[in-house]
């Protein structure tokens, strides 16, 4: 999955779950959209859905300090890489 595809998926989640269209990549989500930890939980469910695998509790905790869309994309990129490197995953 390329960075562009990840960005597009993350933006789709924002539109579907939070009705936010085309959010700016480096905007602080808490300040701009009053994004809170319950929203972060919704976001994680969306990420699990498009990755097609459950996140571990540790992975979820790592996501809770994220503040911008760019950071979300970095986070997802890391998750994708981890899953690719995991034994038995092509």
């Amino acid at each position, binding site marked *: 999955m390329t960075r562009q595809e990840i960005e597009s998926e993350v933006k789709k989640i924002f539109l579907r779950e939070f009705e936010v269209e085309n959010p700016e990549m480096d905007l602080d989500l808490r300040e701009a959209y009053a994004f809170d930890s319950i929203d*972060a*939980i919704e976001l994680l469910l969306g990420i699990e859905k498009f990755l097609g695998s459950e996140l571990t509790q540790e992975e979820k905790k790592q996501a809770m300090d994220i503040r911008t869309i760019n950071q979300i994309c970095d986070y997802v990129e890391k998750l994708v890489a981890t899953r690719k490197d995991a034994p038995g995953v092509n």
Partner: protein
Amino acid sequence: MSPIKIFQNASALFITLLIWVYFLIGSTVFFLFGHIPACLFSKNRASAFQNLNHINMGIFFALTRFLIPRTKFIIQKEVLQIHSSVIVCNHLSYLDPILLISFFKQNCTIVKSTFFRVPFFGWLLRNSFYMPSSVGEVQGQSMVENIENIKKHLAAGGNFFVFPEGTRSRDGRLAPFNKGAFSIARYCNAPLKLVYIKNTNKLFQPGTFLFKTHDNIEIELELIGTLTPDYVSDNFSISAVVDDVRNVFEQRIKR
């Protein structure tokens, strides 16, 4: 003021004081001889705390029934049979959450954030796995832990009850719903049981100190709907679920 009214007010004050004195003393006794030993020796602290809260509030309502016999409690057996669910309720009075705690041994709920800052009481709430109402009170990582705890609690047969209005209704109408509780239900993949609470505000009105001890009041808990949303569907929308739940409550209130 007529002598009858004076007598009624005096007896209402006396009964109210008795009930709240039990609340304070009972909670202190439970804290010293229940919660502290459970904290030290119980393998499942949260479950032990929830059970102790359930017994304490059970006694509180037994005393209330005894002292205010004109108030009847009509609780549907379907309500008492609910398990492993997120129970969504309308909110009329401070009595609502403690009434639900008195009926469910394994109980978990969202509590006003300010109570978490009260010494001892805040500790008791946290260790019962209750959640503060303001998400700002919960640091992100603790939020994951809290919700994972609720997930396990539901899987073990417990209930998580919520008041999505967030505040007590002063006129019987529904306030706007907060969607946070529904996000938690989604995370836990839990069914929603909609329980309509009636007349707790007549027994203990918001903004007053005295229990209404001389009116004939029927407090009811009624299961008015069950929703099992397809949380993983591509078409799933949390706002649609919130609207569905709200509709069910509005239809019931109109009756």
